[in-house]
């Protein structure tokens, strides 16, 4: 008797749950964002120039610009973004679990992240590489002189893996000091708890710019890895991946074609260039193909400017961070930025 009650209950439970939860997912990311009215965008916990809250508490920076451009393209409103600060360790869980719709967080496109962790990188917004920063008074001029040094690294990053490879392939030893966020790393480095701080060279430049005396620290000449940084989304929702990918491409193409935040309002109507017209939605159906309004790209460009404006305004040579375009120049200027055509 006891047993049959138990079995009966189990059967009921099974059937009921099967019925109740069969409809699990189905909503697309785009649908969810439109319903919510805002985009959840994962950014860093704070890296000046890339993503950090300003004095008014508004997030700004190069990566933040990508989030805002996507929000403008999808919702027509660049302020409709919830910024979710993530550390190197929490970012992928945040994206995989659906807490954020996309990550724009100095994240390197690697094989295993793309394939094994099941994410989709939607392009590269900054071509970077890993560098080393040391206090000038240490008198070190090359990373090959760092045998035995104590090195601050952010955990859960490619930095950690590159560092291990670099030191073992050069037969050197080091003492890693694992750290959660860039802010803590900065504090430990300045206190001298480590001799060297290593991360993406852009991150080093951004960190050094916030020091009281930036000239007391040198970035060593060696760049020990390739770090193509770009926005990413979850595997599987290709429509959403396309939107993020082509929003970034729109910013890059806009710079190539001379569309800026200042002229984006009228150039679509006045220009004869068919690609600009397709980009800005005055001709063709590109917006509708993405499931967006015709002026999606125009909105994104109007919100944050084209790629060049975004770069110069946040991390370029006129800012304290002072990064040169280098690899991140348009292909027409000898750089690597090369957006597929809008047609």
């Amino acid at each position: 008797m006891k047993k049959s009650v138990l079995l009966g209950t189990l059967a009921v439970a099974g059937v009921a749950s099967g019925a109740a939860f069969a409809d699990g997912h189905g909503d697309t990311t785009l649908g969810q964002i439109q319903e919510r009215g805002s985009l959840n965008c994962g950014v860093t916990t704070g890296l000046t120039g890339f993503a950090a809250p300003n004095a008014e508490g508004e997030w700004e920076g190069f990566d933040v610009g990508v989030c805002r451009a996507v929000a403008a393209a999808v919702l027509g409103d660049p302020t409709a973004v919830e910024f979710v600060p993530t550390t190197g360790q929490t970012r992928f869980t945040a994206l995989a679990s659906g807490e954020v719709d996309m990550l724009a967080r100095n994240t390197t496109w690697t094989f295993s992240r793309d394939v094994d962790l099941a994410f989709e990188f939607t392009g590269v917004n900054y071509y970077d590489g890993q560098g080393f920063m040391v206090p000038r008074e240490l008198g070190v001029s090359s990373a090959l002189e760092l045998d035995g040094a104590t090195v601050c690294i952010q955990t859960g990053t490619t930095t950690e893996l590159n560092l291990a490879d670099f030191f073992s392939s050069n037969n050197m030893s080091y003492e890693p000091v694992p750290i959660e966020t860039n802010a803590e790393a900065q504090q430990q480095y300045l206190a001298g708890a480590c001799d060297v701080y290593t991360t993406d060279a852009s991150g080093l430049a951004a960190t050094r710019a916030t020091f009281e005396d930036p000239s007391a620290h040198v970035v060593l000449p060696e760049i020990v890895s390739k770090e193509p940084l770009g926005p990413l989304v979850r595997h599987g929702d290709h429509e959403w991946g396309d939107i993020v990918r082509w929003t970034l491409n729109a910013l890059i193409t806009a710079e190539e074609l001379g569309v800026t935040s200042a002229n984006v309002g009228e150039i679509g109507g006045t220009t004869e260039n068919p690609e600009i017209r397709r980009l800005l939605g005055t001709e063709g159906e590109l917006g509708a193909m993405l499931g967006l309004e015709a002026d999606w790209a125009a909105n994104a460009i109007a919100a944050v400017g084209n790629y060049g404006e975004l770069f110069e305004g946040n991390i370029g040579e006129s800012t304290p961070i002072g990064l040169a375009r280098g690899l991140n120049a348009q292909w027409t200027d000898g750089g690597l930025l090369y957006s597929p055509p809008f047609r």
Partner: protein
Amino acid sequence: MATMTDPPVEGFRLSQLIYDTRYRSMTIQVVAFVLIMLGLVWLANNVVTNLQALGKDFDFGFLGNRAGYDINQRLVEYSNDSTHGRAAIVGILNTLLVAVLGCITATVLGVFAGVLRLSKNWIVSRLMSVYVEGFRNIPLLLWILVIFAVMTEGTPQPRDFRGEDAEASMILGDSVAITNRGIYIPNLVFNRSLGGNEVDADTGAVIASQSAGDIILLLAVIIAGFLASGFIGRRATAIQEKTGVRPPGTFWMRLGAVVVPALIVLVALGATLEYPELRGFNFADGIHLRNSLIALWFALSLYTGAFIAEIVRAGIMAVSKGQTEAAFALGMRPSWTMNLVILPQALRVIIPPLISQFLNLTKNSSLAIAVGYMDVRSTLGGITINQTGRELEGMLLLGLFYLITSLIISGAMNIYNNSVKLQER
């Protein structure tokens, strides 16, 4: 003309399931069971659909893959070529290390503070109250961060030790260096190590080294010494009870049983001390106690010690005052009264809550994340999960580890508790 004399037999009605006390408890249990099962099925279903949606499977194979990252504090051999499984073991040992160190110091501190808080000396008891209330009422995380900050900001860098008129210098006869990267202390090394010694190519001198075998041998001899000493002590007590005289020299025999074999092993292995020495960027040689370990260890000990102090105080106060008075009446000194009369009785009250403090301390050690101590949460539950994307598997393993550790601790403490509790006849 048949008359119905039997009361009508009523069939089973559904309402009885609720109103009839014979069935009601059954109904409630079945409903609760169904709900719980539904909840569990929902969770499992959720996991399966989400994993499917992400295109991920459930697989522990990642534990055999190359980890690729380095760990600073390793109690066993590990390099970035080792597997994620090995990294997890390094992390587990680091967790256990800080937990064991923490439990020992917390107990010592707690017993002292608990006893002293009952002291008749006003200043001593007030000081202990300040300690207990200060640590009990401020979050542990804060203490970890405070101690870590003091250790990194308030101490000199290794390079301050360099040069003729260095800003900082080593203490205790140049044997200990306190730096902002941790404390370097001398290490025990052996000229005739069981693991074999290398020979300096230039001078032909033997380079002292240390292998796991040396340490295990030394520990085994010391433990055996303590067992022998215990045996001698028990025999002496038996003789004393029979004859009334304790055999002379018992104390020295007990001391000798511990010290002499250990000394013999040390001499046989050719033990010497290896002093920390500034070489390149850092101190080399010696033992490096990293700031992360020290901050975590101290904070856990001080915090849990405050709770243990309260438990000890409660245990002592639970022993009736008559016991103290009786002991005094027999002419016992206060210290004897405490050690021989009060504490043994108080232990019965103290042990059970002490177990849960040990469990708390072990689990709280996962706050290591705040100072970058490479415990199992940081290796398996942090970097490994992050590099392999195996959140579910990693977290399950992590949960399992803490569960098993906690069960072992409470099992061991329960055995001890059974040995000290009132033996009812």
